[in-house]
Protein backbone atom coordinates (compact mmCIF):
# COMPACT_ATOMS: atom_id res chain seq x y z
CA UNK A 1 0.00 0.00 0.00
CA UNK A 2 2.78 2.43 0.89
CA UNK A 3 5.68 2.92 -1.43
CA UNK A 4 9.09 2.32 0.05
CA UNK A 5 11.31 5.34 0.66
CA UNK A 6 13.47 4.58 -2.33
CA UNK A 7 10.43 4.50 -4.62
CA UNK A 8 8.51 7.45 -3.07
CA UNK A 9 6.31 9.14 -5.70
CA UNK A 10 5.66 12.89 -5.82
CA UNK A 11 2.50 13.70 -3.81
CA UNK A 12 0.51 14.81 -6.84
CA UNK A 13 0.80 11.23 -8.13
CA UNK A 14 0.30 9.72 -4.69
CA UNK A 15 -3.22 11.17 -4.29
CA UNK A 16 -5.85 10.65 -6.97
CA UNK A 17 -8.15 13.41 -8.23
CA UNK A 18 -10.93 11.85 -6.18
CA UNK A 19 -8.76 12.05 -3.03
CA UNK A 20 -8.15 15.74 -3.66
CA UNK A 21 -11.85 16.40 -4.15
CA UNK A 22 -12.68 14.66 -0.86
CA UNK A 23 -9.92 16.55 0.95
CA UNK A 24 -11.05 19.93 -0.40
CA UNK A 25 -14.71 19.17 0.35
CA UNK A 26 -13.80 18.17 3.92
CA UNK A 27 -11.80 21.36 4.46
CA UNK A 28 -14.65 23.47 3.09
CA UNK A 29 -17.08 21.70 5.39
CA UNK A 30 -15.13 22.57 8.55
CA UNK A 31 -16.14 26.28 8.77
CA UNK A 32 -19.79 25.37 8.18
CA UNK A 33 -19.75 22.70 10.88
CA UNK A 34 -17.98 25.12 13.23
CA UNK A 35 -20.62 27.79 12.70
CA UNK A 36 -23.51 25.35 13.04
CA UNK A 37 -22.43 23.15 15.93
CA UNK A 38 -19.53 24.74 17.77
CA UNK A 39 -20.23 28.45 17.87
CA UNK A 40 -24.00 28.07 18.35
CA UNK A 41 -26.77 30.34 17.11
CA UNK A 42 -27.28 32.05 20.44
CA UNK A 43 -30.94 31.06 20.49
CA UNK A 44 -31.98 29.31 23.66
CA UNK A 45 -33.74 25.96 23.86
CA UNK A 46 -34.99 26.32 27.41
CA UNK A 47 -35.85 28.97 29.95
CA UNK A 48 -35.37 28.82 33.67
CA UNK A 49 -37.80 30.40 36.09
CA UNK A 50 -36.81 31.57 39.55
CA UNK A 51 -39.15 32.51 42.39
CA UNK A 52 -37.74 34.49 45.28
CA UNK A 53 -34.19 33.62 44.19
CA UNK A 54 -34.80 29.87 44.04
CA UNK A 55 -35.06 27.74 40.86
CA UNK A 56 -38.75 27.01 40.19
CA UNK A 57 -39.00 25.48 36.70
CA UNK A 58 -37.15 24.63 33.49
CA UNK A 59 -39.24 25.20 30.38
CA UNK A 60 -38.89 23.82 26.86
CA UNK A 61 -39.15 26.96 24.72
CA UNK A 62 -40.65 25.01 21.80
CA UNK A 63 -43.47 23.52 23.85
CA UNK A 64 -46.35 25.98 23.54
CA UNK A 65 -47.86 26.61 26.95
CA UNK A 66 -49.21 29.20 29.37
CA UNK A 67 -47.85 29.01 32.88
CA UNK A 68 -48.96 30.49 36.19
CA UNK A 69 -46.02 31.21 38.49
CA UNK A 70 -46.88 31.89 42.15
CA UNK A 71 -44.72 34.78 43.37
CA UNK A 72 -44.64 36.56 46.72
CA UNK A 73 -47.45 39.00 45.78
CA UNK A 74 -49.55 36.82 43.53
CA UNK A 75 -49.47 34.95 40.25
CA UNK A 76 -47.26 35.95 37.30
CA UNK A 77 -48.37 34.60 33.95
CA UNK A 78 -45.85 33.39 31.35
CA UNK A 79 -46.46 32.54 27.69
CA UNK A 80 -43.98 30.14 26.06
CA UNK A 81 -43.58 28.89 22.49
CA UNK A 82 -41.65 29.19 19.21
CA UNK A 83 -38.38 29.54 21.08
CA UNK A 84 -39.61 32.54 23.08
CA UNK A 85 -41.03 33.41 26.47
CA UNK A 86 -42.73 36.52 27.86
CA UNK A 87 -44.63 37.84 30.85
CA UNK A 88 -48.28 38.45 29.96
CA UNK A 89 -49.52 39.38 33.43
CA UNK A 90 -48.12 40.07 36.88
CA UNK A 91 -49.32 41.69 40.10
CA UNK A 92 -46.97 44.69 39.87
CA UNK A 93 -47.80 48.34 39.27
CA UNK A 94 -45.26 49.40 36.67
CA UNK A 95 -45.58 46.30 34.40
CA UNK A 96 -41.88 46.47 33.51
CA UNK A 97 -41.78 42.68 33.15
CA UNK A 98 -44.60 42.77 30.57
CA UNK A 99 -43.10 45.73 28.67
CA UNK A 100 -39.87 43.74 28.25
CA UNK A 101 -41.75 41.62 25.70
CA UNK A 102 -40.61 38.38 24.10
CA UNK A 103 -37.22 36.95 25.08
CA UNK A 104 -35.41 34.55 22.77
CA UNK A 105 -31.73 35.43 23.02
CA UNK A 106 -29.55 33.19 25.19
CA UNK A 107 -28.79 34.96 28.46
CA UNK A 108 -31.66 37.46 28.16
CA UNK A 109 -33.72 37.96 31.25
CA UNK A 110 -36.98 39.52 32.44
CA UNK A 111 -38.14 39.91 35.99
CA UNK A 112 -41.14 41.02 38.00
CA UNK A 113 -39.19 42.42 40.93
CA UNK A 114 -42.13 43.13 43.27
CA UNK A 115 -43.37 39.56 42.76
CA UNK A 116 -39.78 38.23 42.84
CA UNK A 117 -40.28 36.14 39.70
CA UNK A 118 -37.61 36.04 37.00
CA UNK A 119 -37.11 34.13 33.78
CA UNK A 120 -33.87 33.69 31.83
CA UNK A 121 -33.16 32.10 28.45
CA UNK A 122 -30.51 29.41 28.65
CA UNK A 123 -28.25 28.51 25.71
CA UNK A 124 -25.17 26.27 25.45
CA UNK A 125 -23.15 28.98 23.76
CA UNK A 126 -25.11 32.24 23.94
CA UNK A 127 -24.21 35.01 21.54
CA UNK A 128 -23.82 37.37 24.49
CA UNK A 129 -22.20 36.95 27.88
CA UNK A 130 -24.36 39.69 29.35
CA UNK A 131 -27.14 41.98 28.16
CA UNK A 132 -27.33 45.72 28.69
CA UNK A 133 -30.72 47.47 28.80
Amino acid sequence: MFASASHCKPMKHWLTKGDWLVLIAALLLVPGLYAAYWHGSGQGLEARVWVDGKPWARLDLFHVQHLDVPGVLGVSHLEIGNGQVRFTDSPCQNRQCIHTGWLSEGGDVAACLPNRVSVQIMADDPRFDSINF
Partner: protein
Amino acid sequence: MKRFLSFTALLMVALLIACTPRPPVYQEQLLTFGTLVDITLWNVDEARGRQAVAILARDFEYMHNAWHAWHRGPLGRVNQLLPTGEFFSCPPSIVPLIRRSSELSEASGGLFNPAIGQLIRLWGFASDEAPKGPPPAVEAIRALLAQNPQMSDLQLDGIRLRSRNPAVRLDFGAFAKGYAIDQAIEQLREQGINNAIVNAGGDLRAIGRHGGRPWRIGIRHPRQPGMLASVDIEGDESIFTSGDYERYFDHDGKRYQHIIDPHSGYPAEGISSVTVFAKQADVADAAATAVTVAGPDPADWLPVARALGVTGVMLVDTEGRVQMTPSLDKRIYFDIEPKPDVRFSEPL
Protein backbone atom coordinates in the same frame (compact mmCIF):
# COMPACT_ATOMS: atom_id res chain seq x y z
CA MET B 1 5.44 14.19 1.59
CA LYS B 2 7.14 15.72 4.63
CA ARG B 3 5.04 18.82 4.25
CA PHE B 4 1.86 16.80 4.06
CA LEU B 5 2.76 14.84 7.19
CA SER B 6 3.63 18.05 9.06
CA PHE B 7 0.31 19.61 8.01
CA THR B 8 -1.57 16.50 9.15
CA ALA B 9 0.27 16.48 12.49
CA LEU B 10 -0.52 20.16 13.06
CA LEU B 11 -4.18 19.56 12.20
CA MET B 12 -4.34 16.70 14.70
CA VAL B 13 -2.78 18.87 17.43
CA ALA B 14 -5.25 21.68 16.67
CA LEU B 15 -8.18 19.26 16.89
CA LEU B 16 -6.91 17.86 20.18
CA ILE B 17 -6.59 21.38 21.61
CA ALA B 18 -10.12 22.12 20.43
CA CYS B 19 -11.34 19.07 22.35
CA THR B 20 -9.92 20.40 25.64
CA PRO B 21 -12.80 21.16 28.05
CA ARG B 22 -13.70 24.85 28.22
CA PRO B 23 -12.79 26.60 31.48
CA PRO B 24 -15.91 26.90 33.63
CA VAL B 25 -18.11 29.98 33.57
CA TYR B 26 -19.92 30.47 36.87
CA GLN B 27 -23.14 32.47 36.62
CA GLU B 28 -25.62 33.31 39.35
CA GLN B 29 -28.59 35.65 39.68
CA LEU B 30 -29.51 37.59 42.78
CA LEU B 31 -32.75 39.44 43.50
CA THR B 32 -31.20 42.24 45.48
CA PHE B 33 -30.57 46.00 45.46
CA GLY B 34 -34.14 46.41 44.21
CA THR B 35 -33.23 44.72 40.94
CA LEU B 36 -31.91 41.55 39.34
CA VAL B 37 -28.15 41.27 39.70
CA ASP B 38 -26.41 38.83 37.36
CA ILE B 39 -22.84 37.77 38.18
CA THR B 40 -20.68 36.04 35.55
CA LEU B 41 -17.24 34.72 36.50
CA TRP B 42 -14.82 33.12 34.04
CA ASN B 43 -12.53 30.23 34.96
CA VAL B 44 -13.95 29.98 38.45
CA ASP B 45 -15.21 26.64 39.75
CA GLU B 46 -18.62 26.30 41.37
CA ALA B 47 -17.43 26.25 45.00
CA ARG B 48 -15.34 29.40 44.58
CA GLY B 49 -18.05 31.09 42.51
CA ARG B 50 -20.72 30.33 45.08
CA GLN B 51 -18.52 31.73 47.84
CA ALA B 52 -17.73 34.92 45.90
CA VAL B 53 -21.38 35.56 45.00
CA ALA B 54 -22.49 34.97 48.61
CA ILE B 55 -20.18 37.80 49.69
CA LEU B 56 -21.50 40.08 46.92
CA ALA B 57 -25.11 39.24 47.90
CA ARG B 58 -24.43 40.30 51.47
CA ASP B 59 -22.76 43.53 50.29
CA PHE B 60 -25.55 44.43 47.84
CA GLU B 61 -28.21 43.86 50.50
CA TYR B 62 -26.34 46.07 52.96
CA MET B 63 -25.86 48.86 50.37
CA HIS B 64 -29.52 48.70 49.33
CA ASN B 65 -30.73 49.15 52.90
CA ALA B 66 -28.13 51.81 53.74
CA TRP B 67 -28.63 53.98 50.65
CA HIS B 68 -32.41 54.20 50.32
CA ALA B 69 -33.38 57.86 50.52
CA TRP B 70 -36.63 57.47 52.43
CA HIS B 71 -36.43 54.17 54.29
CA ARG B 72 -35.29 53.92 57.89
CA GLY B 73 -31.54 53.55 57.54
CA PRO B 74 -28.35 55.60 57.27
CA LEU B 75 -29.38 57.75 54.27
CA GLY B 76 -32.93 58.11 55.54
CA ARG B 77 -31.51 59.43 58.80
CA VAL B 78 -29.26 61.88 56.94
CA ASN B 79 -32.30 63.18 55.04
CA GLN B 80 -34.16 63.67 58.32
CA LEU B 81 -31.30 65.74 59.79
CA LEU B 82 -30.30 67.85 56.75
CA PRO B 83 -33.17 70.42 57.11
CA THR B 84 -32.00 71.32 60.63
CA GLY B 85 -28.98 73.12 59.19
CA GLU B 86 -26.91 71.89 62.16
CA PHE B 87 -23.83 69.67 62.01
CA PHE B 88 -24.46 65.98 62.75
CA SER B 89 -22.44 62.78 62.50
CA CYS B 90 -22.88 61.37 59.01
CA PRO B 91 -22.95 57.55 58.86
CA PRO B 92 -19.56 56.41 57.47
CA SER B 93 -21.28 54.37 54.72
CA ILE B 94 -22.76 57.59 53.28
CA VAL B 95 -19.63 59.79 53.36
CA PRO B 96 -17.91 58.33 50.24
CA LEU B 97 -21.17 58.58 48.26
CA ILE B 98 -21.51 62.27 49.11
CA ARG B 99 -17.89 62.99 48.18
CA ARG B 100 -17.96 61.08 44.89
CA SER B 101 -21.41 62.22 43.77
CA SER B 102 -20.52 65.84 44.58
CA GLU B 103 -17.53 65.63 42.21
CA LEU B 104 -19.68 64.14 39.43
CA SER B 105 -22.51 66.62 40.02
CA GLU B 106 -20.10 69.53 39.66
CA ALA B 107 -18.52 68.03 36.52
CA SER B 108 -21.97 67.59 34.95
CA GLY B 109 -22.85 71.24 35.54
CA GLY B 110 -25.63 70.17 37.90
CA LEU B 111 -27.48 68.02 35.33
CA PHE B 112 -26.74 65.06 37.58
CA ASN B 113 -27.94 66.38 40.93
CA PRO B 114 -28.54 63.96 43.84
CA ALA B 115 -29.64 66.91 46.03
CA ILE B 116 -33.11 67.03 44.39
CA GLY B 117 -34.50 64.18 46.49
CA GLN B 118 -37.67 66.13 47.31
CA LEU B 119 -38.39 66.78 43.62
CA ILE B 120 -37.97 63.09 42.77
CA ARG B 121 -40.26 62.19 45.65
CA LEU B 122 -42.82 64.79 44.54
CA TRP B 123 -43.02 63.07 41.14
CA GLY B 124 -43.43 59.70 42.88
CA PHE B 125 -40.25 58.15 41.51
CA ALA B 126 -38.64 57.67 44.91
CA SER B 127 -40.66 54.55 45.69
CA ASP B 128 -39.85 51.08 44.39
CA GLU B 129 -43.03 51.06 42.29
CA ALA B 130 -43.51 53.55 39.45
CA PRO B 131 -46.25 56.15 40.09
CA LYS B 132 -49.52 56.20 38.17
CA GLY B 133 -49.69 60.01 37.85
CA PRO B 134 -51.01 62.61 37.41
CA PRO B 135 -48.00 64.99 37.41
CA PRO B 136 -47.61 67.10 40.57
CA ALA B 137 -48.97 70.63 40.78
CA VAL B 138 -46.96 73.29 38.97
CA GLU B 139 -46.80 75.42 42.14
CA ALA B 140 -45.25 72.57 44.14
CA ILE B 141 -42.57 72.04 41.48
CA ARG B 142 -41.82 75.78 41.31
CA ALA B 143 -41.55 76.03 45.08
CA LEU B 144 -38.90 73.30 45.19
CA LEU B 145 -36.98 74.74 42.21
CA ALA B 146 -36.91 78.17 43.85
CA GLN B 147 -34.93 76.70 46.76
CA ASN B 148 -32.30 75.42 44.27
CA PRO B 149 -30.85 72.47 46.23
CA GLN B 150 -27.28 71.63 45.17
CA MET B 151 -24.58 69.22 46.38
CA SER B 152 -22.39 72.28 46.96
CA ASP B 153 -24.82 73.29 49.73
CA LEU B 154 -23.44 70.41 51.80
CA GLN B 155 -20.59 71.04 54.21
CA LEU B 156 -18.68 67.87 55.07
CA ASP B 157 -15.96 68.10 57.72
CA GLY B 158 -14.57 64.62 58.37
CA ILE B 159 -17.79 62.77 59.18
CA ARG B 160 -19.57 65.91 60.38
CA LEU B 161 -22.19 67.01 57.89
CA ARG B 162 -24.59 69.89 57.53
CA SER B 163 -26.59 71.52 54.77
CA ARG B 164 -26.63 75.26 54.23
CA ASN B 165 -29.83 74.80 52.24
CA PRO B 166 -32.81 73.24 54.07
CA ALA B 167 -34.25 71.99 50.75
CA VAL B 168 -31.45 69.47 50.16
CA ARG B 169 -32.51 65.82 50.36
CA LEU B 170 -30.19 63.20 48.96
CA ASP B 171 -31.42 60.63 46.44
CA PHE B 172 -28.66 58.50 44.93
CA GLY B 173 -31.00 56.69 42.53
CA ALA B 174 -28.97 57.88 39.51
CA PHE B 175 -25.64 56.89 41.01
CA ALA B 176 -25.91 54.21 43.72
CA LYS B 177 -26.19 51.30 41.30
CA GLY B 178 -22.98 52.29 39.54
CA TYR B 179 -21.19 52.86 42.82
CA ALA B 180 -22.40 49.47 44.11
CA ILE B 181 -21.19 47.71 40.95
CA ASP B 182 -17.76 49.33 41.41
CA GLN B 183 -17.69 48.05 45.00
CA ALA B 184 -18.65 44.56 43.80
CA ILE B 185 -15.85 44.56 41.20
CA GLU B 186 -13.34 45.62 43.87
CA GLN B 187 -14.60 42.82 46.11
CA LEU B 188 -14.12 40.26 43.32
CA ARG B 189 -10.59 41.51 42.64
CA GLU B 190 -9.74 41.20 46.33
CA GLN B 191 -10.74 37.55 46.01
CA GLY B 192 -8.39 37.14 43.05
CA ILE B 193 -11.18 37.05 40.45
CA ASN B 194 -10.10 39.20 37.52
CA ASN B 195 -12.42 38.03 34.72
CA ALA B 196 -16.01 38.90 35.58
CA ILE B 197 -19.18 40.77 34.70
CA VAL B 198 -21.43 42.35 37.33
CA ASN B 199 -24.76 43.26 35.72
CA ALA B 200 -27.34 45.01 37.93
CA GLY B 201 -30.68 45.49 36.21
CA GLY B 202 -29.06 45.68 32.77
CA ASP B 203 -26.22 48.03 33.71
CA LEU B 204 -22.83 46.41 33.96
CA ARG B 205 -19.10 46.55 34.44
CA ALA B 206 -16.88 43.88 32.87
CA ILE B 207 -13.26 43.18 33.77
CA GLY B 208 -10.74 40.90 32.08
CA ARG B 209 -12.04 38.71 29.28
CA HIS B 210 -13.80 35.45 28.52
CA GLY B 211 -10.68 33.33 28.09
CA GLY B 212 -9.43 33.65 24.52
CA ARG B 213 -11.96 36.26 23.48
CA PRO B 214 -13.43 39.53 24.79
CA TRP B 215 -16.71 39.62 26.69
CA ARG B 216 -19.63 39.89 24.24
CA ILE B 217 -22.37 42.28 25.34
CA GLY B 218 -25.79 42.66 23.73
CA ILE B 219 -27.59 46.02 23.94
CA ARG B 220 -31.36 45.52 24.05
CA HIS B 221 -33.54 47.55 21.68
CA PRO B 222 -35.42 50.30 23.58
CA ARG B 223 -38.61 49.98 21.54
CA GLN B 224 -38.92 46.37 20.32
CA PRO B 225 -38.03 42.83 21.44
CA GLY B 226 -34.49 41.68 20.70
CA MET B 227 -31.14 43.38 20.46
CA LEU B 228 -30.31 46.78 19.00
CA ALA B 229 -26.55 46.22 18.88
CA SER B 230 -23.65 44.30 20.29
CA VAL B 231 -20.22 45.30 21.53
CA ASP B 232 -17.08 43.52 22.75
CA ILE B 233 -15.40 44.49 26.01
CA GLU B 234 -12.01 43.53 27.35
CA GLY B 235 -9.94 45.02 30.10
CA ASP B 236 -12.19 47.10 32.26
CA GLU B 237 -15.27 48.96 31.07
CA SER B 238 -18.81 49.80 32.16
CA ILE B 239 -21.93 50.13 30.02
CA PHE B 240 -24.99 51.89 31.42
CA THR B 241 -28.25 52.57 29.63
CA SER B 242 -30.99 54.91 30.78
CA GLY B 243 -34.27 54.86 28.94
CA ASP B 244 -37.71 56.40 29.07
CA TYR B 245 -39.16 52.86 29.04
CA GLU B 246 -37.71 51.89 32.43
CA ARG B 247 -39.89 53.72 34.95
CA TYR B 248 -42.60 56.06 33.79
CA PHE B 249 -46.26 56.84 33.80
CA ASP B 250 -48.55 57.97 31.01
CA HIS B 251 -51.03 60.77 31.62
CA ASP B 252 -53.31 62.41 29.03
CA GLY B 253 -51.35 60.70 26.25
CA LYS B 254 -47.97 61.96 27.41
CA ARG B 255 -45.14 59.87 28.87
CA TYR B 256 -43.44 61.10 32.04
CA GLN B 257 -40.19 59.22 32.65
CA HIS B 258 -38.23 58.88 35.89
CA ILE B 259 -35.25 61.11 35.02
CA ILE B 260 -36.06 64.59 36.30
CA ASP B 261 -34.37 67.68 34.84
CA PRO B 262 -33.11 69.59 37.93
CA HIS B 263 -33.44 72.90 36.05
CA SER B 264 -37.03 72.59 34.78
CA GLY B 265 -38.35 70.31 37.52
CA TYR B 266 -39.99 68.12 34.85
CA PRO B 267 -38.99 64.74 33.37
CA ALA B 268 -36.32 64.95 30.66
CA GLU B 269 -37.63 64.80 27.09
CA GLY B 270 -36.35 64.05 23.61
CA ILE B 271 -34.25 60.95 24.27
CA SER B 272 -35.55 57.40 24.24
CA SER B 273 -32.35 55.78 25.51
CA VAL B 274 -28.75 56.71 26.27
CA THR B 275 -25.97 54.14 26.46
CA VAL B 276 -22.79 55.37 28.11
CA PHE B 277 -19.37 53.71 28.12
CA ALA B 278 -16.88 54.57 30.88
CA LYS B 279 -14.28 52.76 32.91
CA GLN B 280 -15.97 53.35 36.26
CA ALA B 281 -19.58 52.27 36.69
CA ASP B 282 -20.41 55.26 38.92
CA VAL B 283 -19.31 57.65 36.15
CA ALA B 284 -21.34 55.75 33.54
CA ASP B 285 -24.41 55.81 35.82
CA ALA B 286 -24.25 59.54 36.54
CA ALA B 287 -23.42 60.33 32.90
CA ALA B 288 -26.40 58.35 31.57
CA THR B 289 -28.66 60.60 33.64
CA ALA B 290 -26.78 63.83 32.81
CA VAL B 291 -26.80 63.16 29.04
CA THR B 292 -30.51 62.30 29.14
CA VAL B 293 -31.22 65.60 30.90
CA ALA B 294 -28.99 67.52 28.45
CA GLY B 295 -31.19 66.34 25.56
CA PRO B 296 -30.62 65.04 22.03
CA ASP B 297 -28.75 68.06 20.60
CA PRO B 298 -25.01 67.17 20.52
CA ALA B 299 -24.20 70.79 21.32
CA ASP B 300 -25.86 70.13 24.69
CA TRP B 301 -24.88 66.55 25.57
CA LEU B 302 -21.34 66.36 24.20
CA PRO B 303 -19.79 68.91 26.61
CA VAL B 304 -21.41 67.08 29.53
CA ALA B 305 -20.05 63.72 28.34
CA ARG B 306 -16.60 65.24 27.91
CA ALA B 307 -16.63 66.84 31.34
CA LEU B 308 -17.54 63.54 32.99
CA GLY B 309 -14.75 61.69 31.17
CA VAL B 310 -16.83 58.97 29.52
CA THR B 311 -15.33 56.92 26.67
CA GLY B 312 -18.39 56.58 24.45
CA VAL B 313 -22.05 57.60 24.06
CA MET B 314 -24.80 56.14 21.88
CA LEU B 315 -28.24 57.65 22.08
CA VAL B 316 -31.58 56.99 20.43
CA ASP B 317 -33.91 59.99 20.31
CA THR B 318 -37.70 59.73 20.58
CA GLU B 319 -37.93 59.69 16.77
CA GLY B 320 -35.72 56.57 16.67
CA ARG B 321 -32.66 58.38 15.25
CA VAL B 322 -29.28 57.15 16.48
CA GLN B 323 -26.36 59.37 17.46
CA MET B 324 -22.96 58.12 18.46
CA THR B 325 -19.49 59.33 19.39
CA PRO B 326 -16.83 58.33 16.82
CA SER B 327 -15.08 56.29 19.53
CA LEU B 328 -17.80 53.64 19.15
CA ASP B 329 -17.80 53.54 15.33
CA LYS B 330 -15.67 50.37 14.99
CA ARG B 331 -16.98 48.75 18.17
CA ILE B 332 -20.78 48.75 17.89
CA TYR B 333 -22.38 46.18 15.57
CA PHE B 334 -26.05 46.82 14.89
CA ASP B 335 -28.27 43.79 15.19
CA ILE B 336 -31.28 45.17 13.34
CA GLU B 337 -32.23 45.43 9.68
CA PRO B 338 -32.16 47.88 8.07
CA LYS B 339 -29.10 49.24 9.90
CA PRO B 340 -29.84 52.63 11.44
CA ASP B 341 -28.53 55.75 9.79
CA VAL B 342 -26.11 56.86 12.51
CA ARG B 343 -25.23 60.51 13.03
CA PHE B 344 -21.75 60.86 14.49
CA SER B 345 -20.93 63.59 16.96
CA GLU B 346 -17.64 65.41 17.33
CA PRO B 347 -15.00 63.32 19.15
CA LEU B 348 -15.11 63.22 22.94
